[in-house]
């Protein structure tokens, strides 16, 4: 059992070390910065609660990423999201902040935009493979999915991206 003080110190270290990655992952799933922030907090609350159950035999990054992925998936599965987001990309009123400007700028990036348009299961493999630079074997651990499935998802994701990006080029004429 970890003491309260240790727990507080530990969570701060984890936020410093893995926070950015968790936030990026949440953004990849939700495509919405403010929603990603909310989920980010939920993820670290979960980590905080379960910190003493973490077994040293597995990798911290894998453990945290799994919690993040599951939190995001649960969020996407929630009834409200199912009813609304699937049919219509609801965009909430945006506050005029510098942060939002940056996010808008990022969204304008067409490659990222194309990645965000991918179905959820492809989005996450593209993120882990191309952005985080994991091997498919690592990803198989993190996602608890067969390596072959991950390879085929990557392949499919690339196919979709390629055709979408090509279309994008054609529109730019």
């Amino acid at each position, binding site marked *: 059992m970890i003491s*309260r003080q240790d727990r*507080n110190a530990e*969570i*701060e270290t984890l*936020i410093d070390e893995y*926070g*950015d990655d968790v*936030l*990026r992952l949440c*953004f990849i799933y939700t495509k919405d*910065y403010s929603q990603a*922030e909310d989920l*980010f*907090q939920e993820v*670290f609350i*979960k980590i*905080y*609660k379960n910190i003493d*159950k*973490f*077994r040293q035999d*597995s990798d911290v990054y*894998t453990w945290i990423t*799994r*919690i993040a992925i*599951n*939190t995001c*998936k*649960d969020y996407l*599965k929630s009834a409200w999201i199912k009813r609304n987001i699937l*049919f*219509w990309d*609801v*965009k909430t009123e945006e506050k005029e902040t510098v*942060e939002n400007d940056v*996010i808008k700028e*990022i969204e304008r*990036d067409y*490659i*990222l935009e194309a*990645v965000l348009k991918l179905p959820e299961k492809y989005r996450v493999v*593209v*993120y882990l493979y*191309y*952005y985080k*630079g994991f*091997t*498919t*074997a690592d990803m198989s651990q993190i996602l*608890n*999915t067969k390596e*072959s*499935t991950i390879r*085929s998802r*990557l*392949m499919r994701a*690339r*196919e979709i991206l390629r055709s979408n990006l*090509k279309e994008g*080029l054609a529109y730019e004429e």
Partner: protein
Amino acid sequence: MRNDKRELDLRRLDEIYISEDLKRRTLLKCKDLNKGGIVMKRRWAAVVMTLVVSIFAFTYVLSYLRQDKDAKDLSYELTQVQSKKEFVSMMNKKLREQSGGIRFFGGRAKEEKALDSSAQPASKEHSNTNVQVEGIDEADIIKTDGKYIYVINFERNELNVYTAEEKPKKVLNLNGEDILGNKEAKEFKGYKRHIGLQDMFLYKNGDRDYLIIMSSVNRYKENPQQPTLKERVIGIMPIYYGEDTTLISVYDVSDIEKVNPVKQYEITGNKLSARLKDGKVYLVTNKGFYYYISELNKNDNLIPYYIEYGQEAIKKEIDASNIRYNKQDIQPNYTIISSIDLINNKISNQVVLGYFENMYMSHESLYLVKTAVNYKEIKQDSSKPNESIAVSVYDENTVIYKFDLEEKVEYKKFTSVKGRIINQFSMDEYDGYFRIATTESINENNKFSTSNNVFVIDKNMNVVGKINNIAPDERIYSTRFVGDKLYMVTFKQVDPLFVIDLKNPREPKILGLLKIPGYSTYLHPYDENTIIGFGMDTGEMEGRVVNKGMKVAIFDISDLNHPKQKDSIEIGGKGTFSESLYNHKALVEYRKYDLYAFDLYETKNDDSFNLEFSGLCLMQIKNGKLDIKAKVTHSKTDSPDAYREPLYGYRAVFVDNLMFVISSRAISVINLDSMKEVYNGNI
């Protein structure tokens, strides 16, 4: 780090990082948890959760076992609508439930192009649209009867007709927007209208020649129903709530100088697919709703309708007795099968609630197919947080509704099988039996995998024979049923071609298989001993399988137990593409010269994705060997702007000893005896 990381640069994500404020808020929330012993309460919650999980998991196993028997799930049965009132209230209820104030987009029919002219042989030998079932034509954007070439140009929304001679002359030009003239149903007075040409059929009846054009019609009112400024700003694109219909126009083109409109019908919904058989056009459309329309307009707009054009345009509702629905799955969208009798100028319609992704038509029946997905969730033991906290499992069933094509289209029966299909070639009817090949996703102990199945279904829609678990962990890339054989390509790393014997419907069996690198996405029967596969070549890169160029292969199936690859060619490098890989109608066969023409976007074979060629590729099969005879382009590939030229627009038809190549900008003619270009002009 990785070579291909350059291709997909996601460094923009670096700009997302946690702010001090977010960190502070998160830490505060965590520390708050310590007050009031929330952590302890959570422990209890964990115990309760485990219990729930085990019950859940148990029911899951039960339902899984039950389904595994291929027992027909009766909940898919269709019921007839009793009255107009019942239908309207059913739809209204569903629309309100589903939209919850937010616009609901009903299914938009997936465009599918291509048909075959089953027309009787004309004076000169010519190619026909590449179709799935012999004698059943599929609509396409280019058709020829040996005398004229009919082409739809999407860029200009035009239909052009050329003479099929060495120096083609344009003899007819029709703009999509003009196709209805001033005619309009009185219900739609005051609406704006856009008409876009889609595809067409040619039909010969005695000495009369007919041209049948399908177009999409969108009507909308410029009034307060249109998107608000806010909606326009946040929306991906402003949606004009309007009415989408499919217009079918029949012209008598026996004398191309004096083209006569014969009949026009307009059917509500977007076109899914169309077929022509024995003087009847079968058109399948799908209609979704925008919620606001049903709120603001009268309920009349919910009723499926069609417009008949004679002297006047008359809007008619489809009788409730022709509407069917599934009680378990009421959807605020519907699919209409219209059959239009070209000889007697009559139309009849059948409506089924719900959205269908695919159709298959044989000489006797029409099958509508949808994928039904059942989600199941398994919660996991939360005392093991380093395992996934929750997984969702879904199983996919393909539900098939059978309609008889006798005097009128009539619903017969349904069945459901496990897994999902890829396209119309996943299905076939032969000798009274319907056959279907599916890929199934399997979840066992949280391990996901796939497996493939073939089902044989009798006239009464009972599964009488099947093979399960073909090529575990792979999925189907293409299938082709030829008589009592099935050729199937599954793929993970290498491409096994399976030969499956369906002679005995009750006992289908795998005869042989061939494993080669790459995969085929379309299989074309050449003769009884030969199948041509169109697909991609693949290679390995850092332990992953990646697509390389396009690959065409000839399979020798004379020994069914030992299929062999006789010859193959690889075209281009990474990024090479042809529409024919996914649209069989983009491939044209001309057996007189054993020629195959398909559009090609070819990249340099050096992983650079740089354009090598964009145009039409002409391939010949001679003595079991593949040979590229010509590549025809209308763009100036050496110019730096070459990639801006139309990429996939190329189509070809063959008449006598000529090949006509048409893109959205130009038309050229190749003499097949000399393999020389004899004409090149703008359209």
